[in-house]
């Protein structure tokens, strides 16, 4: 188990996941990134339960959230994080291939901190991930850390 997790990457597409981890690695962020493949694991991580009940329950500095996920959808994950008193201040950057206007609207409505469409072109994709990571980890001022274990929600 890693020490402190700065980024929680929620991405079910293996290729995209590897690519994103590689880009984060170039910024020396891969070591502090936890990758999960579905919404249910994402929530387990955030609320320190299930497979992640033993972790030191500090909130990550950023959640990179895909929308099309198995088991629990990205929007559902977003809603659960943003409606929890302690977890709601964790910055969530939706990183999705969806071009649906309603996904964009719904995400911001539910409180997503930002929404990024995965560029199709590789170089632009790299740049987008890089800028996103640097913005949320360096430029953005993190909220006061709160133990998210305090409010355990029942698994969906």
């Amino acid at each position: 188990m890693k020490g402190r997790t700065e980024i929680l990457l929620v991405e079910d597409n293996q290729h995209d996941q590897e690519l994103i981890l590689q880009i984060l690695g170039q910024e020396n962020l891969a070591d502090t990134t936890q990758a999960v493949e579905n919404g249910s694991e994402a929530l387990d991580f955030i609320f320190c339960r299930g497979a992640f009940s033993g972790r030191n329950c500090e909130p990550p500095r950023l959640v990179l959230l895909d929308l099309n996920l198995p088991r629990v959808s990205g929007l559902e994950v977003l809603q659960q994080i943003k409606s929890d008193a302690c977890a709601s201040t964790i910055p969530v950057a939706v990183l999705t291939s969806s071009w649906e206007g309603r996904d964009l609207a719904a995400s911001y409505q539910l409180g997503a901190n930002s929404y990024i469409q995965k560029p199709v072109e590789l170089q632009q994709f790299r740049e987008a991930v890089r800028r996103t990571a640097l913005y949320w980890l360096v430029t953005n001022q993190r909220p006061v850390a709160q133990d998210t274990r305090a409010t355990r929600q029942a698994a969906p």
Partner: protein
Amino acid sequence: MKMPEVLLVDDNPADVDLTSEGLARSECSHRINSVSDGAEAMAFLHREGKYHDAPSPALMILDLNLPRKDGRAVLAEVKTDPALRQTPVVIFSTSQAGPDIGRSYQLGANSYVTKPAELSEFFSVVRSIGEFWLGCACLPSPEES
């Protein structure tokens, strides 16, 4: 695609100039609208009075300490108004106080950035804001009122 409209809310004209300059350096096209107090900000957002033709901002950069209506109050109003709450709000303030940061997130701020005291850092930070929000993130499409 229409150029994104940025609403800059800051009572210090020197900072408005600095921020505009910094955003320009991000080389991501945008148009700046600025107001100098919280009441003006709400009037702009609601298209009241002299702002009846105002564009709908795709991004708000909001200082906290403002005359007439405080930045925190503006943030709260924006984030509880169903027509406005989608608008990303970046708090941009000199305050590094934990309570100010925490409260802003609680009120629904999308992001909180402290204004650096040093000029080159200031530009670097504002450029980062521009490059991310205007060059990378998808901003919600302006609502038709």
